């Protein structure tokens, strides 16, 4: 499969296609054009209902925390950078560097998701903004929640791509490998979820007067679980077996990258049209 020397595949031109654009790339760009319409419909719904809010509607300015949202915007932009670096790395055949970049992308993506969960919980419990108690709540949660789901799907995809980069050559793909594969995926997913909820839990505990130590004392399983997942991930990382992943797979990473960047640019639009605009 990767019979080319590193750095010798032309990643900009695929001669087997009529246009030179790889099929997967073309499909992803078309899908993104479609997704523009999808978010367009959701953004329309939100903005339409912001045109003439009923009297007594919640005031977004009093609900939003611009610091938090700016922080998460910055995080997502950084994750985009990491994604671009992952693509460049694999285009040069550097699997290890790609893995690091993917992990940092996952890391930043998780932080974004964590911030969003935190924000939703804050709004719902402290600011009395729920999905159903106002049009603003309805459209806000639906739009940003859908974006969040897109991010979550992206994080899952990143994890799967990361684990994919460990796939052994054809002959060694046994049922044993399949089990280990699923274990690897579960470990990373577990690490992501555990760390995210642990940190959210700690933050919540501190805000309600508790201490970090007390939180972990009552949630010992989270620490244990987290370290277990990390141990599993590290043990896979250190395996030295040959993998069926290299420069020829760059198109898959690139297509995934396009999706991830798209999720970022949708957030740029949402940040402006949902958050910033309310401050005027």
């Amino acid at each position: 499969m990767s019979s080319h020397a590193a750095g010798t595949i032309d990643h900009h031109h695929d001669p087997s296609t009529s246009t030179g654009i790889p099929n997967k790339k073309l499909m992803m760009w078309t899908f993104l054009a479609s997704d523009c319409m999808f978010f367009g419909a959701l953004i329309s719904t939100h903005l339409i209902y912001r045109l003439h809010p009923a009297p007594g509607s919640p005031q977004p300015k009093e609900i939003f925390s611009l610091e938090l949202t700016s922080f998460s915007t910055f995080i997502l932009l950084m994750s985009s950078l990491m994604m671009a670096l992952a693509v460049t790395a694999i285009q040069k055949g550097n699997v290890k560097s790609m893995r690091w970049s993917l992990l940092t992308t996952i890391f930043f993506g998780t932080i974004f998701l964590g911030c969003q969960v935190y924000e939703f919980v804050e709004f719902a419990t402290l600011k009395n903004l729920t999905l159903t108690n106002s049009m603003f709540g309805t459209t806000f949660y639906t739009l940003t929640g859908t974006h969040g789901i897109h991010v979550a799907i992206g994080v899952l995809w990143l994890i799967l791509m990361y684990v994919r980069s460990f796939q052994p050559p054809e002959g060694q793909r046994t049922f044993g490998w399949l089990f280990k594969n699923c274990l690897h995926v579960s470990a990373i997913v577990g690490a992501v979820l555990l760390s995210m909820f642990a940190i959210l839990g700690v933050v919540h505990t501190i805000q309600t007067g508790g201490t970090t130590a007390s939180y972990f004392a009552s949630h010992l399983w989270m620490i244990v679980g987290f370290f277990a997942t990390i141990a599993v991930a590290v043990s896979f990382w250190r395996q030295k077996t040959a993998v069926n992943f290299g420069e020829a797979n760059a198109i898959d990473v690139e297509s995934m990258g396009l999706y991830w960047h798209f999720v970022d640019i949708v957030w740029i639009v949402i940040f402006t049209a949902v958050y910033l605009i309310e401050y005027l």
Partner: protein
Amino acid sequence: MDAILKSELQVKDTAAPAKSAVFWRPTAQTGLVSWLTTVDHKKIGFLYGVFALFFFLVGGVEALLIRLQLMLPNSSVLTAEQYNTMFTMHGTTMIFLAIMPLSAAFFNFIMPLQIGARDVAFPRLNAFSLWTFVAGAIIINLGWFMPDGAPNVGWTGYAPLTSKTYAPDHSVDMWIMGLQLLGVASIAASLNFIVTIINMRAPGMTMMRLPVFTWMTLFTAFLIVLSFPFITVALVELMMDRHFGTSFFEVSGGGMPILWQHLFWVFGHPEVYILILPAMGIISEILPTFSRKPLFGYPIVVFSGASIGFLGFSVWSHHMFTTGMGTVATAAFALATMAIAVPTGVKIFNWIGTLWGGHLSMRTPMMFALGFVWMFMIGGFSGVMHSAAPADAQQQDSYFVVAHFHYVLIGGSLFALLAGIHYWFPLMFGRKVSEFWGKLSFWVIFAGFNITFFPMHFLGLNGMPRRTFTYDTNLGWNAGNFIATIGALILGVGIFIYFAVMVYTFLKGEKVGKDVWDARTLEWSLPNPPPEYNYRVIPTVHARDALWYIKQNPAEIAKEDAAKAKIEADHGGIHMPHQSIYPFVASLGMFVAGVGISAIDHDPTPGFWGKKIGITLIGGAIMCLGIYWWAIEGNEGYHLHLDEDGKESKDKKADHP
């Protein structure tokens, strides 16, 4: 089925080398497994066609019931509730389960052949689209078998009729879920077709040498991927209103029901162009073939198709002229609607130009095609009458609208699809429909159709409203309705003849050789039916109407083909994709989850493992596993080596490592 399965040129032994046991590599060539695991665009197209024709009959029965109810005033063939279900399901079935999949059948079977490709860009995604379509079709129709009944809110599902207050049972949920699955299927298939047409054309097949049917496939695919997201969002918002207590369309919570209409029609209007563009493409193939002339004004026909597609996104509120949008909005949409009549009219002129001075051969496909031109024109006239908003104020929601869209959908889309079936039957199955019976079915259909729908123009102008289950005897509508029902029965007979003839021909019809119509496009260069790999040698295209050039220059082409065959053999032979069960598994998962979401009651003692959530999660898990296996099973495929006669030669090479 036989014809596809037992093609002499079909590869029988896909001896793949020993692969890891983890991934099942189905190799069945016949039987149920071969159909469930096929990734061959021809078989998938055939399946789309079979399902479409089945649902077409279902929709037809629903229509006959409607007409029987309306035959006489104050009738009680159906109750009001049953009537609502009938017109809802008739519309939903005909649009989403009959016309669209029948078009998809042709996109799948014919388009790759027309561009000189061996399959679509993503064969497994193609299979996934098919099975997800089946899943959606089943969920929409599940209500027939449940106490809730089938959906009864009109195919346009206006709020607030669809709210939990007015439609408290599961029928609307199943309508929503079924449509969502159909949307997924359509978008996936369209992404596939776009990449295929743009990226997998044979050498020399520039965009301006593409057959018009392929162009229309491309435009339709773009319309689908760009318009379906709006109905997806609308349906999600509706589902949230119904189940999560939101108020997107709920006035009491601050919502606006009119928003549903906007979101729906932003999708709904491009949808009608999705229904007609493939038909226009088919006609653009048939008229030149049976006029023995190239299509008149090819670039203009293509450009008009693009214009119709693009402008189709700017006219949606012409379905809402009577909702009080205000003068500016109404005028803007009226103007845009009138504008879109221009490229449509241009196409009609070009088709007439094609016929003009041609050597016309009045075979059955030509009859349907000529019927299309004329009937679609009538439908276009009534459409343009609608575009004048003041006139539409009377016509809206009357039978005039029903007349209009049946003229464009039956007289237009259906006639073209029926023409396409006759036209491409010899290619797909190696048999030709008898001229007498084909023409008879045409005339009966033509007569029945016009007798049914022409009176509806008058019924509408005389004030008869749509979607009402009965009418009183002193309104002046008795004669029109009676005649329309007689027409519907005649139409039913015509369809019956058509289907009977088709089934007969499929089983025992006259066998024919290649290129029975002396046509101009590449698909006719293949044996009937085409072998699994389509082209033994990928053709080189020298001109528009590629096959015509090939037939005029046989020596040049033969030399070219021989050279290319050698190159291809040296490169390892013909690359074929493996069959796979995982697309089916993924669709099955979506089906189960869809049933869980829409058809199962909430558990009276709710908990995480209640019936509803449980079934949904199981479905989701099956879907995820199916997708995951699909992603990791690899798509290396296998290779074929063929000799000059297209028979597989003895030395089969192993797959590339």
